[in-house]
Structure formats: C-alpha cells, structure tokens
C-alpha cells in the first residue's frame, strides 16, 4: 500500500535488508565471498553481467577480481586519482616490459613513466591488452542492440558513465585492458581466441599510487559466442603496502626498477 507518504515510506523501508546476486556489500567486511588471506576489506562487490563499478583507492590497496563462473571479463582503466590526466597507457604497458601478454609481475603503466598498479597474482593467465572493450557500433552489429540500459551494453558505454561519476568525460577514456578472456597473436598478426581459463580464477592488482579504477564487466569483443555471454565478477580490496625495495619485483627488470623509482619519487614528493 503506497497511497500515502507514511504508507509509501513503510513500503520502501520493507524493501531493505534483502540481497541480490550482484550488489556491493557494506560494510565491506560483511562480504559473503571474502577471499582467503585478505586483510580488513575496504571494497566488496559482485558486479552483474553487463555491469560496471568504480572506486577511488588508497595507495597500497590490493584489489582482487574473481571470476566464479568462467564468463566474467573485467575491462579495466586506471588513473592517478590525484591527477587523473595521468592514466593507463596500454602501449607503454606492453612495450616497456617487452611483453604483450599480461600476467603476474606485469606493471600497468601510465604515460608518465610510473606504475599505476601491478598485477601481483594471476591464476587465469588469459587476458588481453590488444582489443580493448566493446563499442556501441560493435555490439549493434554483433548483438543487434547496444543500448546502455538494454541486454547487451557496450563496455565503452559503461566506462563513459563510470568516468562521468568522477568528473571525467569521453576524452578521458584511453584504451583499456581486460582480464579473464584471452587472445593470442599468431605469426601473421591474426588474433586467436583463447577465451577463459575456466571458472574460479582470480587476478590481484596492487595500487602503486592513489588509484581511480573503472571496471566494466562485459563480453570480450572477440568472444565468438553469438549470445551476450557474461558472468558475475567479484571485487574485493584491502589495504597493504605498495611495492618497495623489499619486494623481488622492485628489482626484477631494469625497466620495472626505474618505473617503481619514478612512482616512489612522485609519492614521496607529494607526501603520500
């Protein structure tokens, strides 16, 4: 009964306390899916298929993505939360480590010679730094529908909205990377679909600077399945320490070493 303000209020309040398959968990420590080994959680959420999320995270935050069904695809853009003009640069991210395929130890580099986040754990190994996310034009021709509010939203449409909620515009959307659905490049450059490594894999990122992260959970553009095949994506985060001289990865390669030096130089100058 919603025929009066008091009744409408009672009706609305009676809706509280319920759960759904995709929702943020507050406080984060109440997550029913708390990862083993995590510290006090600062972010816990299940992102719906075709959904998105975004968060500003402290330096040193560890972010874990879980793909419980094998059908998640986490498209990710990261920014320096203090100066979002510093953002993921996919070309530098593959060129500077001399490696196109993302995996544990791979830095996500900005265009400013710093590490925004490091991939610190990876049980999937099926990822992509070539194809970016889907556009409305792509989904229209593939699924016949690309409405952001419809059954087959494009990753870019979700990034546009996530970015807007931090005062950013489409100019601020660089190419993204994606996790949990892989492609490989054959000898003549052709992309070979690798797809998922199966259900139950995870990827963990470590925020090396104060981080704005945008996540769109939509099918990889080259997913050969005709249906909009997407599964839930779980996200958990907790506070740890950023990469420093005591970590093996700080010294792993000369390029990564100088990237971490640049990152720490920035952080210390800013008093972080």
């Amino acid at each position, binding site marked *: 009964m919603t025929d009066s303000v008091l009744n409408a209020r009672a009706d609305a309040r009676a809706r509280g306390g319920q759960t759904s398959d995709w929702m943020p968990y507050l406080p984060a420590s109440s997550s029913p899916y708390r990862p083993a080994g995590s510290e006090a959680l600062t972010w816990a959420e299940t992102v719906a298929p075709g959904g998105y999320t975004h968060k500003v995270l402290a330096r040193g935050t560890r972010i874990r993505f879980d793909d419980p069904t094998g059908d998640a695809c986490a498209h990710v853009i990261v920014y320096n939360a203090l100066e979002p003009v510093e953002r993921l640069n996919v070309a530098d991210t593959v060129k500077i480590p001399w490696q196109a395929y993302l995996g544990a130890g791979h830095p996500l580099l900005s265009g400013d010679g710093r590490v925004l986040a490091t991939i610190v754990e990876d049980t999937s190994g099926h990822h992509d730094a070539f194809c970016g*996310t889907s556009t409305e034009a792509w989904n229209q021709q593939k699924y016949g529908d690309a409405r952001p509010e419809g059954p087959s939203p494009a990753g870019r449409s979700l990034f546009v909205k996530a970015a807007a909620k931090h005062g950013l515009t489409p100019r601020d959307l*660089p190419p993204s990377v994606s996790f949990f659905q892989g492609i490989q490049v054959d000898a003549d450059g052709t992309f070979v679909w690798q797809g998922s490594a199966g259900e139950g894999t995870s990827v963990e990122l470590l925020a090396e600077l104060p981080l704005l992260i945008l996540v769109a959970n939509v099918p990889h553009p080259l997913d050969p399945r005709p249906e909009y095949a997407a599964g839930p994506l779980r996200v958990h985060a907790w506070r740890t320490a950023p990469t420093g001289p005591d970590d093996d990865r700080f010294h792993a390669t000369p390029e990564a070493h100088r990237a971490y030096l640049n990152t720490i130089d920035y952080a210390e100058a800013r008093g972080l």
Partner: protein
Amino acid sequence: MTSSVPVGATSAPGSPLDWSEPLVPGEVVLDERVAPNASWSAVVRAGHVLTIVDVGGNQSGDCLIYNAADTEERYSVPDTLAWQGNAYVRTGTVLRSNLGNPLMTVVGNEIDRQDTIGGACSKESNTLRYGHHVMFHHGCRENFLSEGQKHGLGLRDLVSNLNWFMNVPVEADGALGIVDGMSAPGKRVAVRPDTDVLVLVSNCPQMNNPCNDFNPTPLRMIVVRP
C-alpha cells in the same frame, strides 16, 4: 647561432634521401616537408589521399587521427585491431575511432606491415626504457603536445597511436619490441580519410632504439585530390 641547448641528433651527413612522389595520382593540394624531430598537422578532407614518404628510410612517423568536426572522436588502436582481428596495419586496414567508425583507410603501403602497438616515445617513458640520463631527450609525446595545442588538444587527447614505418613484431610467447625497420628511402604509405580528419604527426626524435635507424630523417606529407 650558437646555443648550449642539447637539441638532440639529426641526420648523419650524406644520408641518402628519396623524396619520392604521391602514391596515388591526383591534383596536389598540400605538399610539406617535416624536418627531423619536428611535428606536423593538417586537416585532410574526405576523399583526398595523404601519402607519407619515408624520405630517409626507417623513420618512424608517429601519428594520431581525430574527427575534424569533433575531436572527442579519435583514433583507437583497440577498435582498429579488434574489427580486423589482426595486430598489424596493412593495405586495406580501416583505421577506426573510439566509436568504431572508420576514420581513414590504408589504400597503399610499400612495406610489409605498419605498427600501431608500440605507442609513442616520451621523456618519461625513456627513463624507464634507457635510464634517467636521457630524460632531457626530445620525444614524440612532446611533439604531440606542441602540435596538439594548436588545435585545442592536450594530454587527455593523447591515446595509443600509429607508427608509420616502424617495426614491432609480436613473437609466439608474447615478446614484443621495436626492432630494425623494413622500410627504405622513398617508401610510402597512403591513407584516405573516410571523413574529414585532423592528422597529427611526430617525426620521431628517439635516439635510443632502431625506430628511426638511429638517424632521424625527414618525412614528406603529400595530399592529393584523386
């Protein structure tokens, strides 16, 4: 003029140069030379054809493309690659925007493949790749900023780019890097806009890898109306 400014290297004396000619015949509407280390930009009209000449051979021309009517729509490496299902740029490649729309089409190409994976060099990334002692070197990102600001473009508008005449293979294990080029003096690529486009080019000044054969040479930009 004498100066103590360390402006970087330029062509070795006596470097062979071949200025060539348009790859597609037509009435020449623009014909400009881009000095080593310099930047260039122009609006190229739909239906015209831009020929880029690698005058000295293996000189990377880093390139960004924008819809001239709305620069928020710009070249997108992932869209270009995903739509064609291949990591390299060759004749027939449609250079797509961040909306998935065709911006330009490669209509002629005289080397095996063109790069769009390797991105642009910068003062900042040079410190990772080669050390902090090269921070003072010039870079393509510097050129893109200087040239872009003439059109109201800034750092937010710099995205992953094309590298004409640069060679970046991806090996079976994912190893990737800039290696010796496959071009030569006078080799050309021709691109035809599908809509009016703003083209930014940085004649790559990098002196720490083979993207310009360690010998920065000029580029020639020719626009014809076929």
